[in-house]
Every structure is written in C-alpha cells, then in structure tokens.
C-alpha cells in the first residue's frame, strides 16, 4: 500500500513539474494554453533522441530537454502566441488545440507512432526495500529532482526580485505595468521557463507515463486539472493539486483498474463544482 502511495507521489511530482509552467502563464496573461503538453512531448523526444542517436548519458539529456523546450517556447511566444492574448478564451483554446493537432501529427510523421523508451543507467534501475516499503530507485530520483525544483521555484517565487515582480504582474498586470515592471518581457521569460520545465517533466516522465505522439492530447486533461484545481496564484496550490491527482490516479488504477481514468475526471468535476476558483483560492477583492 505504501509502495503504491510512493509511486503516486513520484507521479504527482512529475505532473507538478509538467503543470506548474502552465499555471504561471495562465495566471499571468489569462491565457489558456492547451498546447503546453506539446512542449512536454518535445522535451521527451529530445531526451530520447539525445540518448539514442547522440549516445548522451541520461543525466546530460535532461538539461538538453529543458533547453530545447524553453527555446522553442520563447520563439513561439514571440512569433505567434503574442497576438492571442487579447482574444477570447474560446479563440485561445481553439488556437492551442490547433497547435496540439499539428504537434501530434507532425511528431507522428517525423518519429512514427510507436512508443518511445529510455534506457535508464544501471544505478537508477530496480528497487530496494526500506521498512517493508518497496522503493523504486528511479522514482526516488524523480522525487528528489522534482522536490528540489519545487523548493527552488517556491524560493524564487517568494524571495527574489523576479518572483515579486511576477507576483505583482499576476495580481494586476495593468498596475504592475504602470509601476514600470516590464510585464511582457517578464512574461516571455516565464513562458520560456514554463515550457522548459514542461520539457524537463516530459523527459523525466518517459519512464513513468510513456511517450508517443498522442502524449499532448492524453495528458492535456491532467495539466488542466493541476492548474484549475491548484489555482494560478501560487506554486503551492498546483503542487498539492498535482500530488492529489498523482496519488488518486495511481491508487485508483492499482485498486480498481476497470474504472480506469474515470476517478480523476470525476474528481476534477467535483472539485470544480465545489471550489470553482481552485482548491486554495485566495479571496480577491
């Protein structure tokens, strides 16, 4: 049982890294970017290719995944995302779904529709037992990395100048702009960071979630749950939402496999109905 819980936490950690970028961009520009999963997929494929074709070690392929996704993110933000900010939510949704479709079909064309695998280094394979709990080495590694990321993001968000500017812009972009905060540059940076994190999450998640061209569609709903349930005004909100989702999903699939993904969708609908502004929404004036 505790082993399942442990797996759920690892899964939730990856979901957090995948989804936190989306929550910040959504909070900052009120932009619904369903194509976030495409950046994650990009990261995953970059990692896979770096290991298979270039023969890079696993650890070196992770930052590469981050950089590639961040770079593509910043270019796309400059070129095609920017005109979308002023449009309606429906337009934004359609636009980003279009991007997802293109990403899915394009990846299928380039890479084929087969599932991709990563060969983990030996020291990350297998599992060991601590007090009767089976702990997968890779899952422990994932939890360590993502935990570290979460702590540093939280620190950056609350303690640094960049973070306080970002929070000001999220709270009220117009006033922040009026105070001389370069909101649009801030946003480009955040978008790149968010995309990069998605790419990193995608690379880390290959082993846990699998990777094929339909990845952005399959996991779109997960990111959205993390964001809508966690709210967009903090790092901790999405973090706990991701944990909850990861544990609920893994436990549900272990215990009642025939119900499948049903549990998390029901969970999302119930949460959205009872807390329409997120699990940890702050009261806004």
């Amino acid at each position, binding site marked *: 049982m505790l082993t399942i819980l442990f797996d759920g936490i690892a899964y939730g950690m990856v979901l957090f890294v995948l989804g936190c970028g989306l929550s910040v961009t959504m909070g900052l520009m009120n932009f*619904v970017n369903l194509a976030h999963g495409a950046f994650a997929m990009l990261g995953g494929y970059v990692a896979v290719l770096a290991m298979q074709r270039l023969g890079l070690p696993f650890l070196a392929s992770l930052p590469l995944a981050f950089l590639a996704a961040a770079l593509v993110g910043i270019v796309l933000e400059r070129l*095609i995302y920017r*005109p*979308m900010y002023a*449009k*309606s*939510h*429906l*337009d*934004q*949704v*359609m*636009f980003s*779904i*279009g*991007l*997802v*479709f*293109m*990403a*899915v*079909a*394009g990846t*299928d*064309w380039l890479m084929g529709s087969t599932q991709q695998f990563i060969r983990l280094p030996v020291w990350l394979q297998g599992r060991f037992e601590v007090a009767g709990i089976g702990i997968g080495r890779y899952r422990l590694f994932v939890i360590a990395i993502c935990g570290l990321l979460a702590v540093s993001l939280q620190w950056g968000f609350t303690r640094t100048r960049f973070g306080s500017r970002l929070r000001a812009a999220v709270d009220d972009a117009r006033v922040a702009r009026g105070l001389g905060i370069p909101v649009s540059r801030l946003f480009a940076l955040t978008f790149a960071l968010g995309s990069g994190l998605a790419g990193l999450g995608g690379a880390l998640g290959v082993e846990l979630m699998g990777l094929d061209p339909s990845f952005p*569609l399959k996991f779109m*709903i997960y990111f*959205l749950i993390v964001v*809508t349930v966690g709210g967009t005004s903090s790092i901790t909100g999405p973090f706990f939402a991701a944990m909850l989702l990861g544990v609920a999903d893994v436990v549900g699939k272990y215990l009642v496999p*025939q*119900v*499948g*993904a*049903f549990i998390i*969708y*029901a969970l*999302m*609908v119930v949460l*959205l*109905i009872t807390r*329409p502004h997120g699990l940890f929404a702050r009261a806004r004036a």
Partner: protein
Amino acid sequence: MSAPAFETRVRQSLYAGRRWHPAEIAFWLLAGAACLLFPRQSLLLNEIAILALFALSLDLILGFAGIVSLGHAAFLGTGAYAAGLLAKHVTADPLAGLGVGMAAAGLLGLVTSPLVLRGTDLTRLMITLGVALILYELANSFGGLTGGADGLQGIMMGPVLGLFDFDIFGRTAYLYSLSVLFVLFLVARRVTNSPFGLSLRAIRDNPLRASASGVPNGKRLAAAYALAAAYAGAAGALLAQTTQFVSLDVLDFHRSADLTLVLIIGGAGYLYGGLIGAVAFKLLQDAIATFTPQYWMFWIGLFLVLFVLGGREIIHGAIKTVAGRFARLGKGAAR
C-alpha cells in the same frame, strides 16, 4: 416611447426575422437537389448533413446563448448509443430511435446544465470537457453494453416511416438526414426568433443587465443547453442509424474540437454558420484525406491556427460580400 409602441416594435422585428429570404430558399433547394446532382457522393452528403445538424446544436448554445463548450461530443455519443441500443434490442424503427436519442441527450443536457452554467468561460470549458471524458470512460468500461473499443455492432435498421429502405449508396440515408436537419432547423429558426431566443441573446451580451430586466438567466440557459443537447443527440442518432454502427469515436475529444472549427469557419450566431461550415469542413477533410490520409490532423490544426490568427475575418468578409450580392438580387426579384 410608450410600452405598447415598444412592444409592437419588438414584435415586428421578430416577425421580420422569421420571414424567408430568397437565398435561404435557394440554399435548401440546392441541398435537396444535391443527391441528384452528385448521386455518387451520397455517403459524403449524409456525413455533411449530420455534421451540419451537430454544428447547429453547438451554434444554439455558443452563438445565441454564449455558452462555450469543449465537450459537445458527449451529447452526440449519448444520442448515438441510445439510438443504436434501441435499434439492436427493442425496435428497428428509425424515427423511434431518433426520438429516444434526442430524449436521452436532452436529459443528459438538463442534468449537466447546473454544472455548466456556473463559473467563468474557463470553468465551463473544463467541465464540459470533463463530462465528455467521463462519458468516454463509461462507454469504454461498460463494454458488455456498448461493445467497448470494438464498437456497437449488429444494428439493423428498418425502413423510414415503413416505406423507404436504407440502400448501400446512402441515398435514403442522405434524404432522411436532410429531412431531419431541415425540420430541426425550422424549429431552431422559430426558437431563435422568439422572445425566448431574444432573451438568450440578451443574456449572451450582458448577463447582469438581462437578469436586472427580469430574465431568469439560469432557467433560460438551462433550457437552451438541454435543447442544444437534444439536437446533438439527434445528430448522434442519425449517425448511428445511417452507418449502422457506433464506436467510441463518437465520444472522442476530436469530435468536439472539429465541431468548434466548423463553427469558426462558418461563423456563429446566425444558424447558417454551422451548415456552411459543415459543408466547407467536410469537403476540406475529404480533399486533404485523399492526398494525405494519415496526417490530415496536421492540416486541420494548421487551419485552426490560421483561422484564429486572422484568417477568419477574410472568410467572413467574403461570405458577407456574397450574401450582400444575393440580398440585392433578392430585392431586385421582389420588385
């Protein structure tokens, strides 16, 4: 302005909206003649008619009531499975199946409307999406009833009205779908040009003001949502009956996404948008599918992106010019 004078003016504008324009008559005559003009394309025409009905359904809530939805496939699937199961286990009469499909989907719409009608656009998008995904999972898990991933097979349909058998070329299918589309279109046209339709538009444009002037927002939106759901259910029932097969695909997310593209192409809020969009979309899909069957999703995505980025105005400008020319022709004929 005194109250009675105002009432007369509103009444007159509603009547004016109900009047038939020559271009509309031409449109429906052309649709009816299509199966004579393109006898080999009846199957495609049938698909167009069904998609048009489905798009009409989304137009009712999106264009007139302003409810955004990413899960309209939920109702299409409900209608399809209801009609399919009825035909398999109870009666092979198509009209009974159509009625049951509409009722089932309408009921689902009514039940889920309290969930959808709260919160912002974003919450609505998520909840509609969530409802559709839940239904997909349900249909997948209850394989004994729905056939699961293999689909619901072995549906045999009786003749329409006891007279017209479904043939393999799809001619009966197309005429049947087109008649249903036409009748439901007439109903939709009447509903949108009624005080009820007017109040929906008021809610869409300014909910606060609408409720301040005495419109019961929640109930009106729920009614519109259920009506649109029933329309989508009808489209699903037609799909199940004319293809004699229901698969999980009817509940798939891409159905909802394609549908929104159809409305984006045709434009929302004037009923014909969905129909024109459906024609354009299916022809486009057909054309793309012939030269690149595997990757047509890419092109659909590209069209979506381009449309939203600014191509929409160009298309709608062109449609308006053509419509304007038709209007002048119509006036010339009347004189």
